C-alpha cells in the first residue's frame, strides 16, 4: 500500500493513540517526512477540538433549577 494511503487509513487510531507502539512510530516517521500527510494530520487534530467546541452549547440556567427541584424534599 502507498505510504500516504496507509497513513490516511490509520489516522484515527493514530490520533486516538490506539495503535501499537511500532505502528505509532512508523506513522510519526512518515509524518515527519511527508508534508501532504502532516498538513492533513494537523487539520484532523484541530478539527476534533473544533467539533467539540462547536457542539458544546451551554446548559440553560432554568434547566438547572428544574433539575434541582426534582430532588427528594428533605423532611
Amino acid at each position, binding site marked *: 500500500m502507498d505510504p500516504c494511503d496507509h497513513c*490516511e*487509513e490509520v*489516522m*484515527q487510531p493514530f490520533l486516538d493513540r*490506539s495503535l501499537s507502539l511500532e505502528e505509532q512510530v512508523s506513522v510519526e516517521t512518515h509524518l515527519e517526512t511527508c508534508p501532504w500527510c502532516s*498538513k*492533513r494530520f*494537523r*487539520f*484532523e487534530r*484541530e*478539527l*476534533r477540538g*473544533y*467539533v*467539540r467546541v*462547536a*457542539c*458544546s*452549547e*451551554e*446548559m*440553560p440556567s432554568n*434547566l*438547572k433549577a*428544574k*433539575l*434541582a427541584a*426534582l*430532588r*427528594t424534599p*428533605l*423532611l
Partner: protein
Amino acid sequence: MSETDTEGRRIANEARDRVRFEEEALGLSDQVFRVARGLVNSREEAEDLVQQTYERAFRSWRSFTPGTNLRAWLLRILTNLNIDRARRVKRRPETQPMEEGDYFLYNKLEESAGRPLEEERVVERLSQDDVVGALSAVPHDFRDVLVLVDIGDFSYQDAAQILDIPIGTVMSRLHRARRVLKQELADRAVEVT
C-alpha cells in the same frame, strides 16, 4: 439499643446517602446536557431528555453502586430514553451514506479554495452551524458513539457500557461516524464557498 433506634439510624443513613447521590448527580448536569444536546436535534429536546433522565435517576438511585462511574450511569439512562423516544417518533429509515476516507474533507476544502490552504486556519472555513448541522445528519447509531467519545470524553470502554454494545463495535462505529461527519461537513462547507 432499641429496634426503633436502629430503624431511625437506618432511615437517617439512607436519607444522607440519597442527598449525597442527588448532589453528585446534579453536579454532573452540565456534562449530561452537553451529550444530550449532541444526540438530539434541538435544544428543547435536549432539555426534555435531561429532565427525564434526572427524574428516572432520582427515582432509581438505589440501583446505583456507590464508587462506580456516576456520569456513565446517568448517560446510560439518557441514551436508553433517547432510543425509546426515537422509536416513538418513528424516524425515517436511514440511508447508509457512502464512506469517504479521512482526508476527504481537507481535500474538498482545498479543492474549493483552488489553492493550497494556510493549514492552521482551515477549520475556520467551517461555521458552528455547519458542524451542528453535519452532526445531526450522522445516522443515530453512529452519532451516539461519536457524541459520547468525541464530545462527552468517554473512553471506548465507557461508551460500550453505556450503549450496551461490544467495544469493537464502538471502535468501528466511531471510525465510520467521524468519516461520515467529515463528508457532511464537506457538503456544507463547499456549498457556501
